[in-house]
């Protein structure tokens, strides 16, 4: 079966597939199925990958879907064929000079969707027209440009994807956009946020990552609230950092802006899944009042390209250029990343073979999500020692407690790990430490430099002081 035919029989296999082929019908065909006991009319729907090969699914005229067992089918007659309809809204949205220009980069997932009620199909909506129609509030905030970079599930992201997203983001910013929104699946959003934070040097404007925990085809979706809040943040806030914008609580009205290096997905399904760990979020956004309320002051501020002074600035830049000075607003995508970096979660009874395998595979660095203050079972120590001293690997210790600092001097095991050269990773989140280590190893092999960089706060990934309030899951 060729690809085209496979697509036209989406999900059907075995006997069910043969039955459809026999009567020359495909997915979205309007059919009349004559059964042994009854007659059904409806539209053939795609079949779930997990379904058996004994049923054909049709959508009845009353909207319900039913599975018809092929053993009950006598004949199928195709009455028509019309794939899921897709019509672009005719509205156009002229550019408004007074509003900031914002770019939305798509990497996967759907920020907005439309429903084809005839077939029940969910169709992604992504062009500015579609987004403005689906979420009309966006038109009041900015001029929007959209571009799809990838269409992948976030669990399938790899360092190469982070690199490309960083490059594309930099390109947009250097073209003059006043904020970038990155639509991203939520599973690994915090990895990408960390990667972009380290890769985008001298970031002059907000880069806001956004996603949703309830798909955008449902009326209760969190996508629109998150998207409006993210757009407000990208267009209007002065937070020139890579951030994550998602629900503050299970309630709809407010979102939090999390620093990319301190955020983590903490719940498999809740809307407020993203939490700032061991610190406080940067700001709170209310998409209804359009208010952005900073919760702290210590973030990188936006470098303004005030439109009124645009002309002036151009002149200034020209002068600077003439003088051979670096242009102030330009962001650099410094995307080098060592792919032979691993993140290991220790547990009681962990076997040294796991580390040995990484040594054999010539890995350059490992971040360990250790227990408590930064421990592994003692049985790993000889292997780790060999990795560091003979293979020149970098081992960074973080805590699987997520909250709190690494303190390896307190207990014997910690001291032993320190002695063999494991680098304590302060209170970096394991995921952030992994990204940071890959980034550093992509740039230097110098042991001293690596150690120094790991332990230096570059982008808020290490907090010097731990605030009492930082230990809260349901923040604010």
């Amino acid at each position, binding site marked *: 079966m060729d690809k085209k035919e496979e697509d036209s029989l989406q999900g059907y296999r075995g006997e069910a597939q043969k039955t459809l082929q026999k009567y020359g019908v495909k997915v979205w065909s309007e059919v009349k199925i004559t059964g042994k*006991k*009854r007659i*059904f009319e409806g539209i053939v*729907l795609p079949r*779930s990958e*997990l*379904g*058996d090969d004994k*049923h054909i*699914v049709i*959508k*009845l*005229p*009353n*909207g*319900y*879907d*039913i*599975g*018809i*067992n092929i053993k009950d089918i006598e004949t199928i007659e195709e009455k028509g064929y019309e794939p*899921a*309809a*897709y*019509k*672009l*809204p*005719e509205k156009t949205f002229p550019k408004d000079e007074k509003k900031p220009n914002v770019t939305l980069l798509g990497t996967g997932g759907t920020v*907005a*969707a*439309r*429903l*084809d*009620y*005839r077939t*029940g*199909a*969910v*169709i992604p*909506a992504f062009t500015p027209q*579609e987004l403005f*129609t*689906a979420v009309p509030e966006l038109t009041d905030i900015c001029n929007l440009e959209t571009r799809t970079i990838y269409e992948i599930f976030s669990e399938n992201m790899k360092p190469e994807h982070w690199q490309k997203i960083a490059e594309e983001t930099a390109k947009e910013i250097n073209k003059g956009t006043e904020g970038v929104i990155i639509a991203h699946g939520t599973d690994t959003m915090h990895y990408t946020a960390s990667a972009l934070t380290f890769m985008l040097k001298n970031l002059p404007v907000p880069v806001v990552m956004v996603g949703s925990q*309830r*798909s*955008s*085809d*449902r*009326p*209760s*979706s969190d996508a*629109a*609230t998150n998207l409006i809040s993210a757009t407000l943040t990208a267009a209007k806030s002065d937070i020139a950092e890579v951030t994550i914008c998602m629900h503050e609580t*299970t*309630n*709809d*009205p407010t979102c939090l802006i999390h620093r990319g290096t301190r955020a983590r997905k903490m719940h498999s*399904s*809740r*809307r407020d899944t993203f939490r700032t760990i061991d610190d406080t979020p940067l700001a709170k956004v209310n998409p209804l009042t359009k208010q952005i309320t900073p919760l702290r002051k210590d973030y990188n501020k936006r470098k303004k390209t005030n439109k009124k002074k645009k002309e002036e600035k151009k002149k200034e830049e020209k002068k600077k250029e003439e003088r051979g000075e670096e242009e102030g607003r330009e962001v650099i995508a410094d995307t080098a990343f060592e792919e032979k970096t691993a993140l290991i979660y220790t547990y009681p009874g962990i076997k040294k073979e796991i580390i040995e395998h990484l040594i054999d595979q010539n890995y350059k660095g490992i971040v360990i999500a250790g227990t408590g203050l930064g421990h592994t079972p003692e049985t790993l120590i000889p292997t780790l020692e060999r990795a560091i001293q003979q293979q020149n690997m970098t081992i960074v210790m973080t805590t699987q407690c997520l909250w709190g600092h690494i303190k390896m001097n307190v207990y014997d095991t910690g001291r032993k790990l320190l002695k063999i050269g494991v680098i304590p990773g302060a209170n970096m989140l394991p995921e952030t430490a992994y990204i940071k280590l890959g980034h550093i190893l992509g740039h230097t092999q110098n042991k001293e430099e690596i150690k120094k960089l790991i332990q230096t706060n570059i982008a808020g990934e290490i907090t010097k002081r731990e605030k009492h309030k930082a230990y809260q899951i349901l923040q604010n």
Partner: protein
Amino acid sequence: MVSEMVESDRLDYGSVGLKVGLEIHQQLFTRGKLFCRCPAELRKEDPDSRVVRFMRPTLSEMGEFDPTALMEFKKGKRIVYEIYDDTTCLYEIDEIPPFEVDEEAVNIVIEIALLFNVEVLDEWHISRKQYLDGSVPTGFQRTMIVGTGGFLPLRSGKKIRVSLLSLEEDACREIDESEEEIVWRTDRIGIPLVEIGTYPDISSPEEAVEAAHRISRLLRATGRVRKGLGTIRQDINVSIEGGRRVEVKGVQRLEWIAPLVRNEVLRQLALLEIRDELEQRGLKVEELTVDFKDVTDIFSETKAKFIRKAVGKGAVVLGVKLSKFAGLLGKEVQPGRRFGKEVSDRARVIAGVGGIIHTDELPAYSISEDEKQALLSVFGARDDDCVIVVVSELERARMALEECIIRAREALGGVPPETRRALLEGNTEFERPLGGGARMYPDTDTPPISIPEELVEKIRAELSDYPWIREERYVKGLKLPETLAYELAVHDYAILFENIVNELGIDPMLVATTVLQKMKALGRDGVPVDRITRDHLWQVFELLAENRVAKEVVDDLLTHLASNPGDTANIAVEKLKLETVSVEKVRIFIKGILERNLNIIKERGEKSIGPLMGEIMKELRGKIDGKTVSRILREEIKAVLEQG
């Protein structure tokens, strides 16, 4: 005219082409909810927390929104969900995908499907049915078709075909609504519901009542549906020849059905008359324009306080001409409800503006004849025109009049397809336009559910009769009084009753009065009868069948079992020393007593029965009935006396 027809009751439903279909929603009696493991129980206390959400209409494939949904959204009304730590989980507030479907609910709905002669499908697909009022926190109700085909027989033998039988989750309960927010309680959402829809095969109010009655009896008879207010909800679809399908929602009592159907027929007839009249007057749709005029000035000196007060607060008086509508707004369409009310209902429900005033009813409400004339002249109204005005804040007034124009235009088509809310006296009011097809799409969170044939066949094998057949059998075969038979036929203990009667051979009347009346009476006396199990009842009647206890002790046994539900009836008999003794044993026992009391017998002859009876019954009470004892005693005394 409408009122006259109600009085004279001269409607011929056959000739108007009445068609009625029913849609019944019944809560199933399960321990848990359909898609999560929370208990299915309603709460009275204040909630532990509240969650605030907004619903956003989803764009259709045509890049459009459903207009009413969009309007709801634009109002920006907050949706508040009340939640309880111990009986609601993340599922009820749409924070987690559904769990596996409740097995108990699946079993019950299959039983119900088979009772309605429905062919059960072997693979069920869960669909999402959109609701934007907030009643379902996901924005859609999860529902699945159980089977197709099926019918309900009426007494006459006529079959009302079943168009749909589905299993779905109930929605939240509305607790409060204000301008700013609507409050829903999450206790009810997720309780399994069966929805049974019929084709419009019903052709008179009486048939509608009978069908609804039979459906509810049939459901009750399973013993596995919930009882009480709000556990069963009926919608009625009514249309007549030339009219349109109108859905009447929220019919809570069977007694409402007949007047509702009748009044809807009258309404549709009246609306058709209005249509004919407008046609005769030559009205064209284009003549009904949204040509609104601000006529606040006309009322600058008005005596109508409500206008002065509203205008003082910034309201305007906005008006529009309804060409060729003179006299029609005053026409009665339901008993006591005029066509003008239909127009203003719509403005009230959609735009939230009450009180549309039309020139036909003026002068009234302290609005003078001069003001009326001024209104008519501002709009250049002719004799057959009428002007309507509304007093409200400008944007809202505009929205209200737009709705009035929409409704007036619809009058040219006769009956608009609508969902209407049932009112108490058999009338209805506008709720919303009837949607096209339900807005449904597949639920991507759940795999299809396989229904094994063996399960269906197992349930089919245990299926009971129709309750009305059971009832007839009780009356004709078992000679039960009709009231008892009616109650018993749908009672949870009906099957138990039949088994006891058939297998133990106990008098049906005794069993029926015990399981219905005696249990109730004991309950009233404070006995915790709900702790008496079916097994207990069976055991008690088994003891009776074996003549091991007298029927007089049934009360004592049940009372004991209610307080000691861990005991069996056998143990209860032992503990209470209630076992019957045989007539032979009694005779021997009596003989023994008499031998010891020969003096008394000789002295008092047959009259000695009095004092002896007392002494004997001290020992035998509850083990044998007094009559038997006294008969034996009499015989034995006689024997002693004859022997001399």
